[in-house]
Structures are given as structure tokens and as C-alpha cells.
């Protein structure tokens, strides 16, 4: 008998999770929404520049096909093409929907949506709400989900952390195990389907542009439970961020989209190296290209500002009033954290880890992982961006992925049979409580925060812009050492109420396991493609490496096993990527 009122668990309340919740609620599902932070504080708020859709409102002849071509080309042909094409076709409708929800997009004098340029395209394709577009989009979806919460269809579990999936004897996902971040109670929740939308993994790199909550802990836990993790080695390093002691704060690509220029002094004059090296795209080359150029200028040519790793991002030639309307949010960040006014002096920026193109493997149609009953959408999965994500494509991929995952999870749930035995739930709860008990009993000498710092340093040094096989081997040895040391740590704070050190220490283990997926994936891939650059293998190698990396956890060896899958290139034949 079909299940008339399916119950979904959605983990993560950023753009992807909220989009999934909204689309599933509309189809009659009951939803329990889990998030480590109140959903309105999710990392999506940090997205600044905008959201791509080929609305072609500037008379440039833009189209979803050109958006698709730019995205595939920008991703160096590693993305499976059919789903990306569907996303680009859906994007204009997504903008309309957001517009109807009241997102305060910037407007033209005629009252239409304004669009600006972004990296990796020659068209004005990016709709924006000042320079806090992610915040405004997240709020709009949060408000719509709150409507369904008011009607009783959505129940939120905020300040709850996902620990693991509950899998039955046939390996079907029947629910989740989670921990209350206040009472520290461990509980299992049954459901007809589960959607994971837990975002990025920045914390694995120590400092990044990501929020604190972006640990990748949930994805890693699922990978260790048998979910395949795809293209983990593809890590985006954003060319322009403000270096900081606690985080690297993003300075949106929209700064260059609105005319910002990158330069360093050379022979007493400004040298606009991106404009010189890439005359067609100039400052708006894709992020991997711009980041490598800045690296070269600073480390090979020794032209960093005052010998420091920094270059100028200059807006001072643009009228202050225009900057305030279009970029106000990021100017405010620079002013508050650095103390200078970017309307008057050029900003000092440097590349920073920003985004993972890799993530949980999902199929080409339904956002379904290889674990039946488990779906994934948003940054935590791998489908849309290939080897390098174009700016302003993340927001559209989050919303589109959620719009697929929600309805397909409902369909799956309607057809699914009841869970049956309570045993898998009891077993999973016991397993998680044992992990907690071991941690509480730990009396070793290792400090989790020190292990984390070493993890971040290792990953940033060896698994970001430049990859060298010898270094990657050393990095993996280091990761294994850190995992070994993790087993000897001592949790000093044994409080059993809202204990932040405890939560962090649990997440850290999962960060270490996922770090190895990134590192070993990079070591294996002997070519250069998108964000993955090896000087010793400087060219893209389609004959050997036009394939998706799949990492699966081998519990016996406690490490990832890599295998590969062909890329669906049925729509657009690969061509050399030159900007």
C-alpha cells in the first residue's frame, strides 16, 4: 500500500536543505529538519555576489545553453552533462520563484532584475541583492519553510548534530542518529527517506572562507558507513579573501564583476597582470585560473605587496554611490575587519580555500546516493561543478539540487515499505553512545585543537593550489599520524551539558578521515584539470583521466579505496580550456 503521508528527515538547513524541505512539503510530506545552527544562521548567508541564470535581460543573446557551455567548460569537462544542462535550463525559473518570494534583488530603471558579470563568462548573467545575495536567498527560503512550520508540516530540530545514518540489514537507510547539542542526548529518528544537505568542508583546511559549522563531519560519517564520495580532490581556492586570524573572509568575485581590478606594483607602476595575461576575460577569468596567477605573481615573481602574500583588489576608480548600492555588504566587511575604506584605498587580498566541488556521490537524475533511501543536495554532493565551480553557480545548484531531492525523496518514500525491526535503531544508538563514552573516558595527552591546527596546515599546504606527489605522500602520512594521535587524546572538559570541546572533538575524527579522501584522490590523479593542478603533470589528460573519482571506505584497512567512473559527455565534446 502506498504511503500517503511520507515522513522525511532533512539534515542541514542551508539553501539546499530548505529548498528540499519546501519542495517536499508542497508534495504533502511531513518533514523533520535537523541543523547544528538555527537554520537562519546557516553558511549560505556568506554567499555574496549573486546567482546565475541566463535570463538574457541585457540584449546579449545569452541562453541556458551558453550558461551550460560556460559551466562545463569552466569545470574542465569533469561534470556529468545532462544534469548540469537541466540546472541551467531551470535557473531562470528559480530566479522568478525567488523574485516572487520577495528577495530584494537589485533592479534596473525599468523595474526589471539587474544582472552583473561574474567569472568565466562574457555575459551579464548574475542576479544579485547588494553583496549579500546568499543571505537574502536563505532568508526567503527560511520564511517559506517557516510557513510550513506554522502549519505543522515541518518540525525543526535546531542545535542537533547528525551522527550517522541508521541502516537496516539490507543496507537501506531507515533514519538517522543525532545528538542534542544542549542536553547531549543521543537519539534515533525513523523516516521513509533521508536527505543530506550539510554543505561544505572548510574546517578540514583549518582556515577558509567557510563558517564554523562547515566541518564535513556528516558527509564523512556517511562515507565511513558506505556512501561513495566523488571527486574529493577538487577543492576550490577563491582568489580574493582577506587574510585573518580566525577565518579568511571572502571578497566576492562581484567586486571584479563590477569593474574591480587586481594588481601589484611593478617597476613603480601598477601591473594589472590578469588583464595582461588574459585579455579576453581580464579580471574575470575563472577562480582556479586567477588563483594560480596570483600564486605565480607572489611566489614565483616575488611581487607580493611589501613582500607579503597579498595583492591589491582595487575599486577606487568606481563612484562610491554605485559601490554602496551594488557591493555595500562586502565593503562593510572590509571596513569592519581591516579598518580601511575600500572606496578610497585598494583592498589587500589573497587566495583562500573556499568550496569543495567533490562530495557525496549522487546519481545523474535523482540526487540519490548509493545507499537506498539516502539523498543528498547542495555543496555536500558532487554533481554540478566538475573540476572547478563558476562563481554564482553554487546558489543555483543548491536550490536546484534541493528541488530535485525533495520531490524524488517523497516519491521514494511513498513507494517504500515500513521499517520493520527496531533493532538497527537500537544498535546504531548503542554504537554512538559507545563512541561518546570512550571520548568521555579518554585520558591521553593529545589536545584535539592542536591536532586540528596541524590538519589545517597540512591540507592548506599540500592539497590546495599546487599539488606535488611527494608532498601528497608526506601529507597522507601526516594524516595517518594525526589519526593515530587522535586515539591518544584526552578530553579535559567532561561536562555533559552543551560541551563545545566534546562536539568539536567528535567532528575532528570525521574531518581526519575525509581529509585522506581529498589527499589520496589528489595523489592518484596525475594530470591537471580545473582546480587540481600538478606542475609535474601540467596538462589535462582526457585519455587517462576524464573520469570521476569514487572513494569508498574500507573499514578493514581504515582508509579510502579509489575507483573510477566515466563522465557523461553526451552533449558537449571536450575541447581545450583556454581563457
Amino acid at each position, binding site marked *: 500500500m502506498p504511503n500517503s503521508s511520507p515522513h522525511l528527515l532533512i539534515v542541514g538547513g542551508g539553501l539546499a536543505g530548505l529548498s528540499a524541505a519546501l519542495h517536499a512539503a508542497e508534495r504533502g510530506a511531513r518533514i523533520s529538519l535537523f541543523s547544528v545552527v538555527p537554520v537562519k544562521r546557516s553558511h549560505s548567508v556568506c554567499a555574496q555576489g549573486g546567482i546565475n541564470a541566463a535570463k538574457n535581460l541585457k540584449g546579449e543573446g545569452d541562453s541556458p545553453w551558453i550558461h551550460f557551455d560556460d559551466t562545463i567548460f569552466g569545470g574542465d569537462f569533469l561534470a556529468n552533462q545532462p544534469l548540469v544542462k537541466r540546472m541551467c535550463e531551470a535557473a531562470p525559473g528559480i530566479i522568478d520563484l525567488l523574485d516572487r518570494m520577495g528577495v530584494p534583488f*537589485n533592479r534596473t530603471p525599468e523595474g526589471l532584475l539587474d544582472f552583473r558579470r561574474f567569472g568565466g563568462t562574457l555575459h551579464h548573467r548574475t542576479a544579485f541583492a547588494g553583496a549579500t545575495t546568499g543571505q537574502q536567498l536563505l532568508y526567503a527560503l527560511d520564511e517559506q519553510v517557516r510557513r510550513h512550520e*506554522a502549519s505543522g508540516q515541518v518540525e525543526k530540530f535546531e542545535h542537533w548534530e547528525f551522527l550517522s545514518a541508521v541502516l537496516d540489514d539490507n543496507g537501506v537507510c531507515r533514519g538517522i542518529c543525532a545528538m542534542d547539542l544542549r542536553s547531549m542526548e543521543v537519539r534515533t529518528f525513523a523516516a521513509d527517506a533521508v536527505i543530506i544537505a550539510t554543505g561544505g568542508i572548510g574546517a578540514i583546511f583549518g582556515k577558509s572562507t567557510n563558517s564554523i559549522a562547515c566541518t564535513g563531519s556528516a558527509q564523512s560519517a556517511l562515507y565511513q558507513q558506505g556512501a561513495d564520495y566523488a571527486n574529493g580532490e577538487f577543492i576550490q581556492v577563491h582568489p580574493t579573501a582577506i587574510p585573518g586570524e580566525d577565518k579568511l573572509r571572502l571578497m566576492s568575485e562581484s567586486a571584479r564583476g563590477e569593474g574591480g581590478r587586481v594588481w601589484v606594483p611593478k617597476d613603480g607602476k601598477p601591473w594589472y597582470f590578469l588583464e595582461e595575461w588574459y585579455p579576453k576575460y581580464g579580471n574575470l577569468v575563472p577562480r582556479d585560473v586567477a588563483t594560480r596567477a596570483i600564486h605565480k605573481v607572489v611566489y614565483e615573481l616575488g611581487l607580493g605587496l611589501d613582500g607579503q602574500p597579498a595583492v591589491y583588489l582595487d575599486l577606487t576608480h568606481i563612484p562610491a554611490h554605485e559601490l554602496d548600492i551594488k557591493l555595500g555588504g562586502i565593503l562593510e566587511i572590509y571596513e569592519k575587519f581591516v579598518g580601511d575604506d575600500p572606496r578610497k584605498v585598494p583592498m589587500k587580498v589573497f587566495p583562500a580555500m573556499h568550496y569543495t566541488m567533490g562530495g557525496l556521490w549522487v546519481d545523474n537524475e535523482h540526487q540519490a546516493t548509493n545507499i537506498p533511501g539516502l539523498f543528498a543536495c547542495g555543496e555536500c554532493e558532487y554533481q554540478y561543478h566538475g573540476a572547478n565551480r563558476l562563481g554564482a553557480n553554487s546558489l543555483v545548484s543548491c536550490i536546484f539540487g534541493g528541488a530535485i531531492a525533495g520531490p524524488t525523496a517523497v516519491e521514494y518514500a511513498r513507494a517504500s515499505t515500513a521499517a520493520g525491526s527496531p533493532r538497527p535503531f537500537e544498535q546504531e544508538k548503542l554504537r554512538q553512545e559507545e563512541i561518546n563514552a570512550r571520548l568521555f573516558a579518554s585520558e591521553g595527552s593529545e589536545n584535539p585543537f592542536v591536532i586540528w591546527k596541524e590538519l589545517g596546515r597540512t591540507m592548506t599546504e599540500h592539497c590546495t593550489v599546487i599539488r606535488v606527489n611527494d608532498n601528497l605522500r608526506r601529507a597522507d602520512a601526516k594524516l595517518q599520524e594525526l589519526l593515530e594521535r587522535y586515539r591518544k587524546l584526552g578530553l579535559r572538559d567532561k561536562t555533559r551539558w552543551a560541551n563545545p570541546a566534546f562536539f568539536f572533538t567528535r567532528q575532528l575524527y570525521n574531518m581526519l578521515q575525509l581529509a585522506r579522501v581529498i589527499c589520496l584522490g589528489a595523489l592518484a590523479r596525475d594530470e591537471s584539470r580545473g582546480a587540481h593542478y600538478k606542475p609535474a603533470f601540467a596538462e589535462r589528460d582526457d585519455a587517462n583521466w576524464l573520469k570521476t573519482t569514487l572513494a569508498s571506505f574500507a573499514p578493514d584497512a581504515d582508509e579510502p579505496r579509489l575507483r573510477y567512473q566515466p563522465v557523461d559527455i553526451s552533449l558537449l565534446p571536450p575541447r581545450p580550456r583556454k581563457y
Partner: protein
Amino acid sequence: MPANTVRLRIKRQAGPQAPPVWEEFEIPYRPHMNVIVALRDIAENPVTRDGRPTSTIAYEANCLEEVCGACAMVINGRARQACTALVDRLEQPISLEPLHRFPMIRDLQVDRSKLFNDLRRVKAWVPIDGTYALGSGPRQSPQDQEQAYPLSRCISCGNCLEVCPQYNTRTDYVGAAVINQVRLFNLHPTGKMHRAARLDALTGPGGIQECGYAENCVKACPKDIPLTDSIAAVNRQMVGHLWGKALGR
């Protein structure tokens, strides 16, 4: 002050029922520190100034660029976000206290769920028919956008509520942040179709009449939202709304 250490006094509370205690910390100074960096340095090695090991300090934080609203606390007597509180600009010892108008969880962490529940109470959303394709949204002038966008930047930090003399558990007052959202949605071409329902939600206990015009809210807002203008605007709408109801319109 070119000292090479940073001193902090932190009000600790192990749980909702536990008595508050103050602890002092002294940590090495680093350039460009903010309060978050100081709290993280303490977390690495939680030992008080007089050498006593202590528990990790609980606080909420996420984006660290003042757009998520999580890290609100009272710093040197002022309600603000910890991420933008730069150590170089703070007098030492830096005192950290939790927001005290919300239920205590632990240390600097409080329960602000009332704020989100109140957004539900006032129907702070645009009532769309569905997510299916219904064409583009209503046209709006750049001037309308420039009026709505600043109101829409509220990060639900709760600083405006912390400084409001009327915001307490007795009256159930929704406060400036939530009234500002009513103004925002009543401005929107589609949102205003539900203007009456939102205004009704702002009458009765906890409604807009609880505002005492102390005008502290607008000074505490980290996003420079014109909160007192918003309260005045919604008050004007309310007068018309209530007259309309009284006259049976």
C-alpha cells in the same frame, strides 16, 4: 596599549540553574585579534589567569563576518557581535557576558528561539501560491529595492532586544527586529496582501503597543537598520488598520 597579553573577564554559568561565576584569563596578544580568536585561544588551553584548569567556554558563532547573527554577547557592557569586536579597540580587561534577556544555556550561550517563533507569529513571509512556474515577480523600482533591502538585512542577532527595556518574559513583547520584518513584508507588492493579518498579530499582549520609545534598539543594531523608523511606520499602519476595523471596513 602595546601589551603583549590580552586580559579577559568572562561570566560563566555551567547551566540554566547553575550560579554565575566570573573567571579571568590572560592570553598572548596577536595582531588583528577579535573576541572570537581570544575565545578560541582559551579553548586550546582552558586555564584561568591564576593557573587553574577550567572547562571550555560555550558560545555561539558561525560565519565570523557578521552576517549570521550567532555570536551576539555583551562585550564591555555593550550588546554586540563578538566577531567584529576587535581586541585592539577594546579596553582591557575585556568583559564578556551572555545576553541576559534570553534563557541561559551555558556560559555565553543563550536560547534565542523566541525571536524565530515571533517571526512565525507575525507571518513574516510573502504568501506565494507554490513553487511551480508562475512567471516573474512583480516589477519594482530601484527606489523600492533600496528601501526594502536595508530592512531585509536583519541577522536576528537579538542585540536590539537585549537593550530594550520592554523586552522581557513578562510582557512577551516581540521587539524591534520582528516589527521591522512586518514593515518589510507590508512593503512588498505581494506581501502587503497579508498586511492585515500581520497587523492583527501585532495587537494584543506582546504587540507593538508594548514599545516604550526608549530608542535603544536602533543604536544597538550592527546592521544600521532604521528600527525606530520601522516601529513608527508600523504604528501608522496600525492606526489606520484599527480605525478601519472599528468602522467595519
